[in-house]
């Protein structure tokens, strides 16, 4: 017997009822009596000394009530705030601006319009300073030191390495074949369609409530308490409906802090909503990794060793959102789906005059950078060996029987069947027929390419022995209350930004508790009511909070079993949980449903037992989870214009046990599109003066329905052995896996011309230039 809305069912989403009616409640929809608006003056310079800020004219603008400057904050020790990586970031500058569009002052007014007028009227006198745009130049001797406040007088923020350096060097030296590629993964921006913002309000008792676009409300509360010195019980963070996050709503931006300061200063609620230009130009970026990778193999095509060196451009401060112990995130998953004997990775973080960041872009802490690197260079190696890229992967994959598998860089992969996923993708796309077609087309001078990416992800951070953010361990939580009538409410430490938690968490609970998912309300995002958790990013909700849901439900079942035994007048040991109810072993019609048990918990609970039916679990995962997949992309190239068209894209994903197939497929569609975006379209450019070029949707081009192909999806299922229901997480897999498949396809189309790599985004003119030069040659 199945329970309605249990695990594995494609039930429709609960949250849709309000969204399709336009009744979602996003931050900008919050309207409080007497609310004021805050708008921000931003620097035109990427690096400059502030000589003066004149606010006289701004204060005369009708409706403007106050202007906040760095020196005003300095007096309250709020001019700087710590970043999640224990660096420091300006809320407002006192002395220097460090990137174009940095916050310089904040204007508070009685309307959005007046605040914008006030911003224009603030006069700032700057003295331009030398700008450092290129991270390589930042490391050269004599480069201006961007952060003289640090003890180390260098633009190198940190150096981090892992693996066996000498062993790797030796193994590469001894390899029959070694391939090296320099891969630049450019700076991009998550650009959720809702920008960031907040409404900050103090009540008469001095309690601060902030409605905020945040993926991690609890952590934000603690950060606010530590930074502003407010007592934590007097801070309430509410993350209402969030219009997409993708990592961009993890950090604390200066605007949030300014709104709180302004609310304190004026005694009114204050709303700050950034516009799209501010969002792209000032909020955290993703990627910006300059990677050099070398890979070795024996002559017969067996992988030997991998060496990766990377320069990471972090802007003027390290405001990445990574677990504390990992300044380069989980980049050392870079050995991917292959059993290297030896590997070594080193990363140098560098300061430049650019906005800070280093957040994910729908991925788990630099996993995309890693998957792209390995899947790109494996392709190059296969080509050098004269082997088909599919055959080469099949030959080298970690075999299914090797799991749990310890990688050369120290991770323990939980489960996998890489051959199975690739085989399935090849069958769906009819790989052999495509290769035949390609050979024929090549004879006719037509360009088509087939690209494979067989990625392994690492998500669900993470086990407390290794994972924390600012010391906060990366557990997550679920609290369940079963009401007397057998309905339930459950609250979580995570926060959905579109992933459908209200539906999928209810499905886990329905399965565990035998209550229809329709009868289970799910709440997240209010720190006054939800249990503490680290939030939703890095595909961690299902592996952590989803697991907490199972464990908390099982705690409830333990108590329910005793109540059922009491009601049935048997020993608890005589009962079994079967068909979503407790029944006397071997006597199916002697049973109690959860509804009956819940009623008894409040009306007829056993003597000596506490009344009620509630449980909470803070789940500390024993390991991370390792979703994987194999993608095959087919492209056609216009020889004259260099335009790349994706003809087909087949994605076979394995995320372990699937809670809601419909939602999983939706997540993969979205993830694939955010994989296509950086592969073909998105890139943030700077000119030599540090101006971000094209900092709006006029120039920063997100894929539309026209460029996006009709994704073809399929699955294999290899449950995680350590997750209570075997689920692994899926929100980001496709973003991680897709870029390499697309680039591999384009390179494959041009390989006969000697092309081994093209940096993303692959624009028509990059392809044209290659074709043009080859034709000319």
């Amino acid at each position: 017997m199945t329970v309605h809305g249990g695990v594995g069912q494609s039930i429709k989403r609960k949250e849709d009822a309000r969204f399709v009616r336009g009744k979602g409640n996003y931050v900008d929809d919050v309207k409080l009596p007497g609310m004021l608006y805050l708008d921000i003056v931003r620097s035109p310079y990427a690096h400059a000394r502030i000589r003066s800020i004149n606010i006289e004219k701004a204060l005369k603008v009708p409706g403007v009530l106050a202007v906040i400057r760095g020196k005003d904050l300095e007096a309250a020790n709020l001019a700087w705030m710590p970043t999640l990586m224990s660096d420091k970031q300006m809320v407002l500058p006192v002395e220097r601006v460090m990137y174009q569009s940095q916050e310089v002052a904040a204007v508070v007014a009685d309307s959005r319009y007046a605040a914008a007028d006030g911003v224009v009227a603030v006069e700032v006198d700057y003295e331009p300073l030398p700008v450092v745009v290129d991270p390589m130049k930042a490391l050269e001797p004599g480069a201006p030191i961007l952060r003289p406040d640090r003890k180390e007088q260098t633009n190198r923020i940190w150096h981090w390495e892992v693996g066996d350096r000498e062993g790797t060097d030796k193994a590469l030296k001894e390899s029959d074949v070694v391939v090296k590629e320099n891969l630049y993964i450019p700076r991009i921006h998550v650009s959720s369609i809702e920008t960031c913002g907040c409404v900050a309000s103090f009540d008469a008792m001095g309690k601060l409530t902030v409605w905020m676009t945040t993926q991690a409300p609890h952590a934000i509360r603690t950060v606010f308490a530590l930074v502003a010195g407010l007592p934590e019980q007097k801070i309430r963070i509410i993350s209402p409906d969030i219009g997409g996050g993708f990592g961009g709503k993890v950090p604390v931006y200066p605007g949030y802090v300014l709104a709180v300061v302004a609310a304190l200063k004026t005694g009114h609620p204050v709303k700050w909503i950034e516009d799209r230009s501010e969002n792209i130009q000032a909020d955290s970026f993703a990627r910006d990794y300059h990677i050099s990778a070398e890979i070795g193999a024996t002559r017969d095509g067996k992988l030997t060793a991998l060496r990766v060196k990377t320069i990471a451009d972090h802007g003027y401060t390290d405001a990445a959102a990574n677990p504390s112990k990992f300044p380069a995130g989980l980049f050392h998953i870079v050995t991917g789906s292959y059993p290297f004997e030896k590997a070594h990775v080193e990363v140098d973080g560098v300061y430049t005059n650019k906005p800070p960041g280093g957040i994910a872009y729908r991925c788990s802490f630099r996993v995309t950078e890693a998957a792209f690197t390995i899947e790109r260079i494996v392709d190059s190696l296969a080509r050098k060996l004269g082997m088909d890229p599919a055959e080469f992967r099949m030959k080298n994959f970690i075999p299914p029987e090797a799991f749990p598998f310890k990688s050369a860089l120290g991770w323990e992969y939980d489960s996998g069947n890489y051959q199975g996923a690739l085989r399935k993708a090849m069958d769906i796309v009819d790989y052999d027929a495509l290769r035949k077609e390609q050979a024929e087309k090549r004879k006719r001078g037509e360009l088509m390419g087939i690209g494979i990416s067989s990625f392994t992800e690492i998500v669900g951070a993470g086990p407390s022995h290794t994972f924390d953010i600012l010391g906060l361990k990366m557990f997550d939580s679920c609290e369940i209350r079963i009401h007397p009538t057998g309905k339930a409410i459950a609250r979580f430490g995570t926060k959905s930004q579109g992933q459908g938690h209200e539906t999928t968490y209810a499905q886990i609970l329905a399965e565990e508790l035998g209550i229809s998912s329709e009868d289970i309300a799910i709440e997240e995002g209010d720190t006054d009511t939800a249990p503490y958790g680290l939030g939703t990013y890095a595909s961690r909700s299902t592996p952590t909070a989803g697991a907490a849901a199972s464990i908390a439900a099982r705690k409830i079942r333990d108590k329910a079993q005793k109540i059922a035994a009491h009601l049935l007048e048997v020993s608890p040991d005589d009962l079994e949980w079967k068909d979503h109810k407790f029944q006397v072993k071997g006597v199916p019609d002697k049973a109690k449903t959860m509804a009956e048990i819940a009623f008894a918990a409040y009306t007829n609970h056993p003597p000596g037992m506490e009344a009620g039916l509630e449980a909470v679990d803070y789940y500390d995962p024993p390991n991370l989870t390792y979703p994987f997949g194999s993608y095959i992309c087919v492209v056609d190239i216009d020889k004259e214009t260099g335009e790349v068209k994706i003809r087909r894209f087949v994605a076979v994903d394995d995320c372990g046990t699937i809670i809601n197939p419909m939602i999983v497929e939706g997540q993969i569609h979205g993830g694939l599109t955010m994989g296509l975006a950086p592969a073909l379209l998105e890139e943030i450019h700077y000119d030599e003066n540090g101006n971000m070029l094209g900092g709006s949707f006029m120039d920063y081009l997100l894929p539309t329905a026209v460029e996006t192909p009709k994704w073809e999806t399929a699955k294999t299922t290899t449950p995680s052995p350590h997750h209570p229901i075997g689920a692994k997480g899926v929100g980001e897999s496709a973003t991680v896996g897709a870029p390499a498949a697309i680039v591999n396809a384009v390179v494959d189309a041009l390989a006969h011309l000697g092309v081994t790599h093209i940096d993303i985004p692959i624009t028509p003119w990059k392809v044209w230039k290659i074709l043009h030069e080859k034709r000319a040659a």
Partner: protein
Amino acid sequence: MIPPRFEYFAPSSIDEAVQILDRFGGEAKVLAGGQSLLPVMKLRLAEPRALVDINRIPDLAHIREDAKSLRIGATTRTNDLNDSELIHARYPILSDAAYEIADPLVRNMGTVGGNVSHGDPANDLPACMLALGAHFVVRSPTGTRTIPAKEFYQDTFVTALESNELLLEIQIPKARPGQGNAYVKLEKRIGDFPIVGVAANLVLTTKGTIESAGLALTAVGPTALKATEAERHLVGKAPEDDAFQRAAELAQEITSPVSDLRGPAEYKRAMVRVLALRALHRASARAHGGA
């Protein structure tokens, strides 16, 4: 992003509109579709003292053909070109262009007059107008005059339109038998500003040679460019690849593209040739009765 303050006028007649424009002496801006103007104002890169909304003036939105011309009213929405059977059947160059201007929602507001007179070298319709030999009928407080498209585009955002003049109508020579035309453009992504666009218009004699030719280019100079030498080369030739190749080369020669987020200059120049060939071949096919 919030626009600055301005006075707003919604005149109900052409005369009233041009009087207001005249009164503000260059400090007023005509608001037609607003799809280019309002974003610039929201960025506070333009701060006109007054906006003159011409959408309430009757009969400025029309598409009709008379004995001599196709006449398109200034506030005709770009999408109306798409929806017009007349345009599809007889002036496909305009539906080619209109189909890919910005996006369908912008095209519901954006006007043909605005696209034509904004003076942005990346707008698509100016090249079409140059290729078709259009004339623009404009009104000022002192009267009406007609400006040929080839004299209209002076520099980036600078046109022959005086600050007290209002564009009323675009007049395009009536389509003739043996005429075919096409607009071809290359974009980084749909809805983006073009990398390059090429408009081609051919009229063939009954013997099948080219009687007259129009060829014009988008986004490769300070304004849309009329490729006069290329046009001249085509006249009298057979509408075939040889002639088109040379015309495409001649078109390349008049360009001065800049390197930007939409590609390096050398790419744009190369694409002028590729697109010119495609546009000419398509125009020729249409002149021969093809689609």
